[in-house]
């Protein structure tokens, strides 16, 4: 059965086209890639790697439209800095500087804008990057919903660092830096007005220092890293499986999911594997280095709950499976078009 993205049939853009799943891939491949054809974006990683006068630079951009702009554990500003920083560091880059552009709806409270911007400044300081340029546009009331932020970032990839989905090999161990689904569920729970007694906080965090600690422990044995944002762990691992022509097998019992997140997912009919994260990473690591990298992760504040959650196999290329708690095995499908818009 052909499960590759199909040519776009819709005449109008649907919300699902922004889901980070199969519909997004269809939109990108049928509208954007043909127009912007060049070798760099064809890899479709989170960051483009360009060589300029001998230096390898990572370059990325991301837009943030999360609704509401303030949520437990973070806000749109924090997300806008960390999201772009994380896209850079997943390629092994050391982030240097960011740009920040604001589209603001007429009537947006200046106090809220200040709060967002201060949060961005704090996040940038924590991540060790500077916001060096930007732009501001204001649109009529109703033409946008409050505030949208676009950030772009540049980082330098030190010599010798080679990370990428195509480097994932059979035998690799899949490591996950902590509990999954926290961000998406925090925003969803807030938006649907669900009160579970315990506040569920977003995990938004800049992952640069965790990545450096991992690379110090594992070096070239770390084959790929990815922060599973939209589309969640399911989308990231399916992309790896397809890019590397391998099969990935997860152990459900090993995947860290917080109790309250599981409870919300059960209630709303979501699979934590499909839910967005903003401060977690997945790594594919050669088996001989997996223990050392896992120890390094657990010694870092952002990786205390890190776990080995699965393995890479040679058979049936391009597929992801999970051994369920009850003992069956089922496929983990590439998410199609989730009904969870504006989560980041």
């Amino acid at each position, binding site marked *: *059965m052909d499960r590759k993205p*199909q040519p776009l049939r819709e005449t109008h853009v649907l*919300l699902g086209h922004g889901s980070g799943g199969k519909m997004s891939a269809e939109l990108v491949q049928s509208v954007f890639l043909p127009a912007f054809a060049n070798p760099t974006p064809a890899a479709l990683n989170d960051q483009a790697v360009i060589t300029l006068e001998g230096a390898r630079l990572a370059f990325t951009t991301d837009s943030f439209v999360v609704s509401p702009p303030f949520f437990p554990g973070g806000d749109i500003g924090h997300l806008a800095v960390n999201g772009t920083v994380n896209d850079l560091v997943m390629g092994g880059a050391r982030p240097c500087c960011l740009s920040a552009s604001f589209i603001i709806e007429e009537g947006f409270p200046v106090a809220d804008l200040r709060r967002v911007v201060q949060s961005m400044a704090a996040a940038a300081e924590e991540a060790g990057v500077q916001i060096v340029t930007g732009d501001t546009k204001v649109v009529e009331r109703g033409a946008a919903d409050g505030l949208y932020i676009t950030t772009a970032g540049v980082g330098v990839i030190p010599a010798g660092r080679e990370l990428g989905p195509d480097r994932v090999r059979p035998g690799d161990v899949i490591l996950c830096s902590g509990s999954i689904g926290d961000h998406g569920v925090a925003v969803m729970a807030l938006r*649907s007005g669900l009160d579970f007694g315990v506040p569920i906080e977003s995990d938004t965090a800049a992952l640069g220092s965790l990545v450096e600690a991992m690379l110090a422990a594992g070096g070239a044995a770390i084959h790929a890293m990815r922060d599973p944002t939209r589309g969640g762990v399911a989308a990231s691992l399916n992309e790896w499986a397809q890019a590397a022509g391998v099969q990935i097998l997860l152990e459900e019992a090993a995947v860290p999911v917080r109790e309250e997140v*599981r409870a919300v997912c059960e209630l709303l009919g979501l699979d934590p594997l499909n839910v967005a994260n903003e401060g977690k990473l997945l790594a594919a690591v050669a088996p001989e280095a997996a223990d050392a990298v896992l120890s390094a992760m657990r010694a870092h504040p952002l990786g205390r709950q890190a776990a080995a959650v699965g393995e890479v196999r040679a058979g049936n290329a391009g597929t992801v*499976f999970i051994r369920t708690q*009850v003992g*069956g*095995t089922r*496929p983990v499908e590439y998410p199609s078009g989730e009904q969870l818009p504006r989560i980041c």
Partner: protein
Amino acid sequence: MQYLDEFRRSDYAQRLAAAIRDEAAKLDRPVRLMELCGGHTHAIYKYAVDAFLPENVRLIHGPGCPVCVTPRGRVAHAIELARQPGVILASFGDMLRVPGEKGSLLKARAQGADVRMVYSPLDALKIARENPDRRVVFFAIGFETTAPAHAMAVLRAEREGIRNFYLLTSLVTMPPAIRAILDSQELALDGFIGPGHACSISGTIPYEFVAEEYHRPVVVSGFEPLDLLQSVLMVLRQLVRGEARVEIQYKRLVRPEGNPLALARVAQVFEPKTVEWRGLGVLPDSGLQLRPAFAHMDADLAFPEAVPRHLEDPKACECGSILRGAKAPWECRIFGTACTPENPIGACMVSPEGACAAYYKYGSRLQEGAI
């Protein structure tokens, strides 16, 4: 997680599987059981429950997905209402993705209609309260499980004097569908896994006829893998003993008399109606419509400009046969090729409770011998 992990334990699953094998061996013939609820269909694929069953026991998916059984003409009607000036049309997320005649409610929204996704009819009532100058239509679908929530929304609208709230009903009840499936004799069924959540409202008395008139066992089941395995075992034990009774496996939620308070509210607001089901056709008294006292909230009466009609399913689509249990998803020629979750042609590919969507998401690669 408490109350969930206990029902997913692999050691218990293995023991139930062994007991099922023993009972099935005593029968020494193929056994076909239909699970009536879409929630069961989803859980069966999600947890690979089939994998615990011996070869001679087969689960057949029934008509229990509310989104799936809503006929195509009704979807087209909802889209027509959504396009009326001043209308806000609200429904559950999956219903918005089902294709009508030309596209879905979501596509109508992309083209300018005001279509909103809600989790509950009470959310739609809130939209009506906040938009007094608009007409808010809630596309009300579902089985016995959702009927009380719809009744509450109607009663609350009445109490608050909200005059801009309407229901476009496509509400159905399970027992007439079971009778239709048994009467059609299209497939030989040995027993039923009864719908746990629908029975938590209706009780099990409306299912007694299956045992009394048709001599088939019914076991009303919960939705966790161990619930389903235990229910299969209970049906097999009845078959081995030559019995046909209605039993409740889902005792933590279901009482034989159901939920009297909820049933009273439903009876206050709705009355039986002869309605069309996708796949099963027109079944007498198988649906619910608003009683005359609430007729002013009935979108069928309040919007004479939108005309209800009947639409056949697209020719290639096998949703009808799949909803009757006559065909499996993979026996449909367009399954996974022309019809996918991104571009569904039939409703069974839309809802996670639909057999095709569940099979596409969880099952199809197992069929291909993938691991």
